[in-house]
């Protein structure tokens, strides 16, 4: 009987992950002893865990290490993203604290599942091995299927959960098959090892075919996750059916996590094939922009409009992803920075926008129609201001966070020599401003259509304020955030 020796583990790398997963499991047990009327406590405790995990990350800044046989990596890139995930989780939970009891769906498992989803996102940001990326993707997806169907009194929620499950399982199959082909072509599943194999030896034509086919399948799988065209068709229905805080988490956390691993995969493993994947992704980015923004233009339903707009934003982030792989070092670095900056700005903005929808939503009725926002300025001035800030940020108008994000992705794409997609992107952004400003006009100029009471809870107010302030601070004082992302180096340039 041989003794099994577990290899030493660098706990700094896994610290944040362990806190989140451990705390989620502990909360599951604590929830047993909390009476049903006080389920809220679990929500507060979940936020505490998130804050602890975020603080635990501060001394880890500057660490560049990997552990678990090189499968898990902590660098400035993943740490920044982890903070972003934690922030979006905290805001989501704050927004849910009031929403869940109001909809009659408050259960302690909700908060636990949100924490598990955060852990899955962190795995996607930190994973340096295709196995971990796949497991993280599945973990995140399974939690999100359940959360999407969480509003069980509404049939639409169940339907959305089912749709998401079927599409997600389909996408997961693509990823696995792609990983198999990549392994067959390069003999490794570690991202860096794949990149080194490509740099070191010339592949035979067949191997190159398998490599590209595998990479394409993996990109398709992640394309479903981040809702880029033509893999976006699930997004509007699922976003509309899901409980609104979950929609917020879906549109920011899950998208950011998908892009985090997609970027690492493309830059670390496939930088050598940039000439091939850049034009393909550029075409997809343009298609995504077109589908998302044209779809959003025609919507009367604000929640659905935000779903289409979030498809459109995936297109802008793709610009940054394309630039990040550029062989030119300056453009590549600017690409990584732009993706992170865009994700930060977009996360706060979208959470704020969904927060306003949550504040408007009453039990048993949806307040997602454009008319429900009419005259909001007279009824609830602060709510109207928060929504206006978020809409301006989504449209990319200064002085909001969204402006800097757009500026960065456009300059990155320009530097990478993709002048034509930059021009198209700017034109589409100008068109998109129309439907965002239409909402602002509704709120400030139209007469109130109805005098519905708007109960607001302290947690909801805090969550909404945090998100809106985040957008404004990012807009007026962008230097700290830009400083932060400029320290992030990804791939072989490091």
């Amino acid at each position, binding site marked *: 009987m041989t003794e099994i020796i577990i290899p030493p583990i660098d706990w700094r790398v896994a610290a944040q992950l362990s806190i989140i997963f451990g705390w989620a499991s502990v909360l599951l047990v604590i929830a047993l002893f909390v009476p049903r009327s006080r389920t809220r406590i679990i929500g507060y405790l979940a936020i505490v865990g998130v804050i602890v995990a975020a603080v635990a990350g501060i001394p880890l800044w500057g660490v560049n290490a990997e552990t678990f046989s090189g499968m898990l990596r902590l660098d400035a890139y993943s740490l920044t993203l982890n903070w972003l995930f934690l922030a979006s989780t905290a805001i989501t939970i704050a927004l849910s604290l009031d929403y869940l009891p109001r909809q*009659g769906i408050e259960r302690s498992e909700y908060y636990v*599942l949100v924490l598990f989803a955060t852990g899955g996102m962190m795995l996607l940001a930190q994973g340096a091995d295709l*196995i971990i990326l796949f497991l993280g993707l599945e*973990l995140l997806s*399974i939690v999100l299927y359940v959360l999407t169907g969480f509003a069980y009194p509404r049939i639409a929620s169940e339907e959305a959960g089912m749709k998401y499950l079927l599409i997600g399982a389909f996408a997961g199959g693509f990823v696995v098959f792609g990983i198999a082909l990549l392994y067959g072509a390069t003999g490794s599943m570690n991202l860096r090892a794949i990149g080194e194999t490509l740099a070191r030896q010339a592949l035979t034509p067949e191997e190159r075919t*398998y490599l590209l086919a595998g990479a394409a399948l993996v990109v398709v799988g992640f394309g479903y996750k981040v809702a880029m065209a033509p893999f976006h068709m699930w997004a509007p229905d699922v976003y509309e059916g899901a409980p609104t805080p979950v929609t917020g988490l879906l549109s920011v956390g899950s998208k950011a996590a998908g892009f985090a691993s997609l970027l690492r995969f493309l830059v670390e493993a496939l930088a050598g094939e940039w000439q091939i994947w850049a034009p393909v992704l550029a075409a997809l980015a343009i298609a995504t922009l077109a589908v998302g923004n044209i779809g959003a233009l025609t919507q009367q339903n604000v929640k659905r409009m935000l779903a289409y707009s979030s498809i459109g934003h995936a297109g802008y982030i793709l610009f940054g992803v394309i630039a990040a792989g550029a062989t030119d070092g300056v453009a590549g670095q600017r690409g990584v920075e732009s993706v992170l900056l865009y994700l930060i700005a977009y996360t706060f903005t979208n959470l704020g926008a969904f927060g306003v929808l949550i504040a408007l939503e009453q039990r048993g009725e949806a307040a997602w129609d454009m008319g429900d926002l009419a005259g909001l300025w007279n009824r609830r001035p602060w709510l109207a201001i928060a929504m206006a800030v978020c809409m301006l940020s989504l449209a990319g108008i200064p002085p909001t966070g969204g402006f800097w994000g757009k500026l960065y992705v456009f300059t990155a794409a320009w530097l990478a020599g993709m002048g034509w997609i930059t021009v198209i992107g700017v034109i589409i952004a100008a068109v998109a401003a129309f439907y965002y400003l239409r909402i602002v006009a509704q709120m400030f100029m139209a007469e109130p259509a109805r005098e519905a009471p708007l109960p607001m809870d302290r947690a909801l107010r805090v969550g909404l304020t945090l998100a809106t302030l985040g957008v404004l601070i990012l807009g007026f004082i962008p230097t700290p955030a830009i400083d932060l992302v400029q320290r992030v180096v990804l791939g072989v340039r490091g």
Partner: protein
Amino acid sequence: MNTLITVLFLIFAAIILASAIMTVTVKNIVHAALWLISSFFGVGALYLLMEAEFLGVAQVLIYVGAVSILILFAIMLTRDLEGSQNRQLTPRWWIALIVPAALFSLLIVPTVMTHAWQLPPPPPAGQPPAISGAQQIGAAFMREYLLPFEVAAILLTVAMIGAIVVAFEERERRRRVLTLAEQVRLRQRQQQRQQPAPRPEPAATAVQPSEATGSET
């Protein structure tokens, strides 16, 4: 010996293929599940043929023993599923045929044409292959693949929590969603009981009962 193995392989492969085809073509869904079990058995036998005993046993235990029984339970507990009038093919079945066929041929064509995949070299004769027995699998999970092992554990836990959340939703609460008016009255009653509260909720006081009844439809 080698001929025997080849013959056995061909028999098992034929069983797997035939069962798989029957699974997707028979009209009766219970029969389809039974054909699926037969296909699982064939795969288990193939594992044994490849000297991966542990995988073979696990295949029989988990897939034949547990998964297929669950499938049968799910079929029998679901109403309106056994109708034989259900359509088998969608109008665009040929697309569904072409895509998997293309993906499959991507793998099988080079293998048949003896393309050398970049795989780890086989172990020298006499030694067991890298991952075959329970011992090697266990050691690999504890050393090299510790993280995937742990993450898979979390994944299964989460899946179980999710299944419980979905399945054990409280039925009586599902039907009984408080209307807005009831909720306002409830909140007012709670506030009266809690008086003197330091600061009443501004939103709740803004609502008059008459208004609330009006908005309830």
